[in-house]
């Protein structure tokens, strides 16, 4: 939002990165240093209150597995927000993709051929929804907020119609076995999250696609004048996020062994929150995958620590609100000290 920008510009840029020790943190890690500190503090609280329970391998995997689904969505969301957009329909798209990929017809086909059919279906549905979003926003010149709000209503409604509001159990064993398995003790879901994170980081920071995303989000007019096809690029960003939602649906199908129209409820808020807490500018032009991953981990670890400590849900909500504010303030102060805003 503009206000933030304004306020930020009041404190003059420090301009130059400091040498020596601080330089270590002036890269992506530096910008996220506050978040790392917040996460570490959270872990310390976890260890103090729940001892070895918290640090156990199983518990860590539980946190990561929970983080993996919303994590994949959040990484996609990082691209859209960095590119100056927003997507409220992610949860609905996840639901629709999960339902579509677990209909009787799809599952029968998958049993007859290969479970890859289900994955393809989910990705196609996700990508298709993203494409519709992108086309309406970029070529239809409509506000992203409105288009994706409409998609939120539409996709979830369609999911309900397809599933007839029933839960569709996944009976394709090969599918469940594959995604439910471990690789060297690490759950496949966590591996997927890790791979998507790395791919996202490379895509945003090391490729022309990523550079152009920053340009389109930071100054779309300048990007257009530099010869970038802004509309096409914007559309691609939403397709990318749609695909991430499709993948998340697959992961959710594996995790819950069921497809339902209630999957992905409120993912839009969770994902946007993780992205923004991570340090990506909601107004576009600056994005960080590392920050997003940290944001997701902070939220999931928070829930885990709460659960281990048997906290009442209302108290949890209040505590969550306070912790969000404190984490961001911390992040800001640390970033300011490190000379990167």
């Amino acid at each position, binding site marked *: 939002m503009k206000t933030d920008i304004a306020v930020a510009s009041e404190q003059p840029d420090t301009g130059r990165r400091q040498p020596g020790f601080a330089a270590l943190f002036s890269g992506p890690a530096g910008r996220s240093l506050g978040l790392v500190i917040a996460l570490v503090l959270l872990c310390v609280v976890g260890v103090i209150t729940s001892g070895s329970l918290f640090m156990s391998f199983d518990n860590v995997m539980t946190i990561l597995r929970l983080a993996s689904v919303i994590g994949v969505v959040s990484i996609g969301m990082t691209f859209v927000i960095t590119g100056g957009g927003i997507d409220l329909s992610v949860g609905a798209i996840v639901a629709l993709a999960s339902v579509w990929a677990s209909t009787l017809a799809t599952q029968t086909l998958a049993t007859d051929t290969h479970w890859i059919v289900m994955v393809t279906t989910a990705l196609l549905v996700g990508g298709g929804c993203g494409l519709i979003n992108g086309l309406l926003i970029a070529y239809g010149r409509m506000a992203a907020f409105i288009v994706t709000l409409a998609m939120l209503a539409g996709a979830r409604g369609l999911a309900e119609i397809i599933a007839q*509001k029933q839960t569709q159990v996944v009976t394709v064993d090969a599918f469940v076995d594959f995604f*439910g398995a471990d690789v060297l003790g690490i759950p496949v879901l966590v591996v997927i999250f890790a791979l998507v994170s790395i791919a996202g980081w490379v895509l945003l920071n090391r490729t022309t696609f990523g550079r152009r995303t920053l340009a389109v989000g930071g100054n779309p007019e300048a990007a257009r004048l530099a010869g970038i096809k802004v509309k096409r690029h914007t559309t691609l960003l939403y397709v990318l996020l749609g695909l991430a939602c499709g993948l998340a649906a697959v992961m959710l199908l594996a*995790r*819950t062994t069921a497809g339902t129209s209630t999957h992905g409820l409120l993912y839009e808020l969770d994902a946007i929150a993780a992205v923004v807490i991570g340090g990506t500018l909601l107004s576009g032009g600056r994005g960080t995958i590392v920050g997003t991953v940290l944001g997701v981990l902070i939220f999931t670890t928070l829930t885990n620590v709460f659960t281990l400590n048997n906290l009442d849900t209302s108290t949890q909500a209040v505590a969550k609100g306070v912790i969000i504010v404190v984490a961001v303030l911390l992040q800001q102060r640390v970033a300011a000290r490190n000379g990167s805003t």
Partner: protein
Amino acid sequence: TSNEAASVQTNLGPRAVSSNDEPGKEVVIGFSGPEADHGWLAAINSTAIAEAKRYSDVTLRLAEGTNDPSLQISHIESFINQGVDAIVLLPTDGAALTEVATKAMEAGIPVVNVDREFTSEFAARTTILGDNYGMGISAGTYACKLVEEHNLGPDAVIAEIAGLDSLPLTQDRSDGFKDALRECGQKVDHRVAAEFTVESGEAEASNLLQAVPKIDIIWNHDDDQGVGVKAAFDNADRNEFFFIGGAGSANAMRWIQDGEMEATVLYPPTQAADGIRLARLLAQGKGMSDLVQVEVPRRIVLNAPVVTKENVDKYLPLGFES
């Protein structure tokens, strides 16, 4: 009226006291339910907690209520990691939680399923069902009785205010209602779905009253949203119909006493409390003292009786403050 910190516990009246209540082995029970965002679910939680407090040998671990199956799965996973002695689980979605419940059972932790059934026999040691379909049947059967008693004829206008429509349990209730009505040649003429909240109840009911100028019978799935539904009736000055509720909150029972409501179909929020008790017995290896068999049964289905002016006094102590 509901501002006193009411707990159903104190209202429950006389309860069976048996040798099973003697302190036994110390047990840790994990409890996870959906987001307690309205009265019935809040009552589910509070009765469960209160029940656990009654036993000095029970330590209760309470997970954050959620409507996201994925998050609930991770709660169960952390219960398994913690090595609790038993798990009481009110799933957001029975099918979605089956896998992880099975995992818990395989890890030797007995799972007590409350209210929403799993898709596998092996996922729960014991299931306590509130019978949503049966609730619809009760409501429908009672509606049929009203049609007959008051001679409303085959064209009686029957409306339904459902709860959160995307939940399978809402579908079950609606199916039961429809099926029971069919028995007496009736059908649901108009249906809206609220969201279990007072506000949505008021909004949906307001629109419904406009859509149908004259109604004979209304069944509202949930007495929580019923507060709003009732407000809408009062706002519009409409009372030409029989108003049947669901769940059985204390508010609803008082309305029945005052003649402002015809009846409500009970859906007791004490299931989870029962679940805690059974989980304790399971973890301690005990049976149910009122039964001859030495083990806790696999399946308990609660009754969905209809509370009317005649019997409301008997049920009022069970009514939860919502």
